[in-house]
């Protein structure tokens, strides 16, 4: 399959994808980098003076940055924890012999197809609203004070909503992985006297590690840039309690029109993402392509 002819052809066929992605990555990134050194505000047309690292200084020393950095981290880790933990449980449950498994699958998978704006709005109004939400009704019914979710625990509320959206994905991938588990291996282990617990630890867990890696990789890509859920529920508040880095930069650049500051934030976000990416790539390199 490898003649000079086909190799040349292969390069040609790669060209569109590679060049488009290169442009998509490099041109805006360079512009962002450039803007990040300027005093550039869309509301104050001026000479956009070069101000060195001032934007970075402002961005990095802003208490909002520290807060949103930890919010981002909490959001990603919290959702990963809930979806993978819950996903494994659900996958094991769905792997059992049950009646109507297909209907159960369909119900479990559904939230994955719901667009983030819809799920955020539905949860915010119809479930978590402190007066008219279903949770409030339920609290009143059992005689406790309803919780004002977005005021008292804004980040946790968002983690719950996002986890609801991603749990199906994790569960289904893990279920498929469990179903591809070699039954003979399990039976052999049983003959060797392995109990359910050691079977789980020594056979099921290693087998699932590939699938878990895939789940972590894909979810992290999407979770690092959660946006719509915050926009339509808390708008980052109260204060910065539910602002992640994506949302912080959005408010700076498109709500306060501070292009310079927003760009500096963008570059910081890219650097953070790169650190995460290097870590993840190691993980997949080891686990996925074996």
């Amino acid at each position, binding site marked *: 399959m490898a003649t000079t002819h086909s190799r040349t052809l292969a390069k040609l066929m790669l060209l569109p994808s590679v060049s488009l992605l290169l442009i998509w990555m490099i041109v805006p990134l360079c512009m962002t980098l450039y803007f990040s050194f300027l005093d550039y505000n869309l509301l104050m047309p001026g000479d956009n003076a070069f101000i060195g690292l001032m934007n970075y200084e402002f961005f990095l020393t802003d208490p909002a940055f520290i807060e949103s950095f930890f919010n981002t981290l909490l959001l990603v880790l919290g959702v990963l924890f809930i979806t993978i933990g819950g996903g494994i449980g659900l996958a094991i449950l769905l792997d059992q012999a049950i009646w109507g498994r297909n209907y159960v699958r369909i119900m479990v998978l559904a939230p994955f197809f719901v667009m983030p*704006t819809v799920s955020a709005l539905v949860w915010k109004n119809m479930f978590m609203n402190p007066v008219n939400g279903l949770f409030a009704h339920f609290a009143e019914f059992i005689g406790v004070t309803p919780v004002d979710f977005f005021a008292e625990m804004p980040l946790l509320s968002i983690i719950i909503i996002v986890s609801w959206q991603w749990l199906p994905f994790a569960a289904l991938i893990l279920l498929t992985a469990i179903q591809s588990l070699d039954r003979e291996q399990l039976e052999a282990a049983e003959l060797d006297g392995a109990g359910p617990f050691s079977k789980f630890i020594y056979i099921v867990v290693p087998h699932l590690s590939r699938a878990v890696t895939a789940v972590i990789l894909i979810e992290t890509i999407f979770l690092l840039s959660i946006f719509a859920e915050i926009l339509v529920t808390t708008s980052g508040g109260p204060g910065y309690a539910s602002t992640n880095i994506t949302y912080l930069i959005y408010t700076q650049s498109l709500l306060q029109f501070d292009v310079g500051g927003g760009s500096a934030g963008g570059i910081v976000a890219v650097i953070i993402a790169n650190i995460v990416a290097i870590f993840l790539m190691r993980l997949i390199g080891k686990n996925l392509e074996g």
Partner: protein
Amino acid sequence: MNTNNQTKAIYTILAWTISGLIFFPILWTAITSFKTEAEAISSSPSLFMFEWTLENYSDVLARSPYFEHFWNSIVISVGSSLVGLLIAIPAAWSMAFVQTKRTKNLLMWMLSTKMLPPVGVLIPIYLLFRDTGLLDTKLGLVIVMTLINLPIMVWMLYTYFKEIPHEILEAARMDGASIKDEIFHVLLPIALPGIASTMLLNVILAWNEAFWTLILTAANAAPLTAFIASYSSPEGLFYAKLSAASVMAIVPILILGWFSQKQLVRGLSFGAVK
């Protein structure tokens, strides 16, 4: 009832309860969309015993140009998926069938562009779009969606193509097929299920994408994500109408997703599970 059936019954009840809870928000939204506003916020809500009405749907249709948003969503998601396939198929062919030492690194690099946070390029894209008149156009969004989903498409297609034995393509070459024949008469028909699921997944991802669609559109090109976001402004609590609008936004993709769930899982796991 023997013990086997007993455990099956227990697991069944457990599974139906949990999956019912997971599905409940969607079911509840669907039910609320048929209630009157008064009933929707009633403090003793009822699952089925209320007066069913279609009023909310007609209200939503009257309040906003739903079909325009719907059409925009279709154009953006299907358009970007088709353009993406056009670019991704040749690339995946190269990677799967003419492997070099660099192939794996190239794939990793492509995937890493997917990790580039959108905010990192938000401002330049916004300014570039403003200056080129792409802001609030369907074309602009098709371009952006194609680019952000391209790495996933290439990777998915690559995992599907890699499973096709090289010999089949070589046989075609021996049989006198040109590269065009080889791709159109042999590769594509064999890989059709994989291509279809790649396409489906990307339609779903683009349909639900809510960063670029919210930022780069206003009145003209706004898809359903933006249409629904307009219900977040706190101008009173119209739960029933919100529900009707939500149902209208998610039903098309929900049905599509249910039909293709098997292929989706495989594709989305990057070939990690078969």
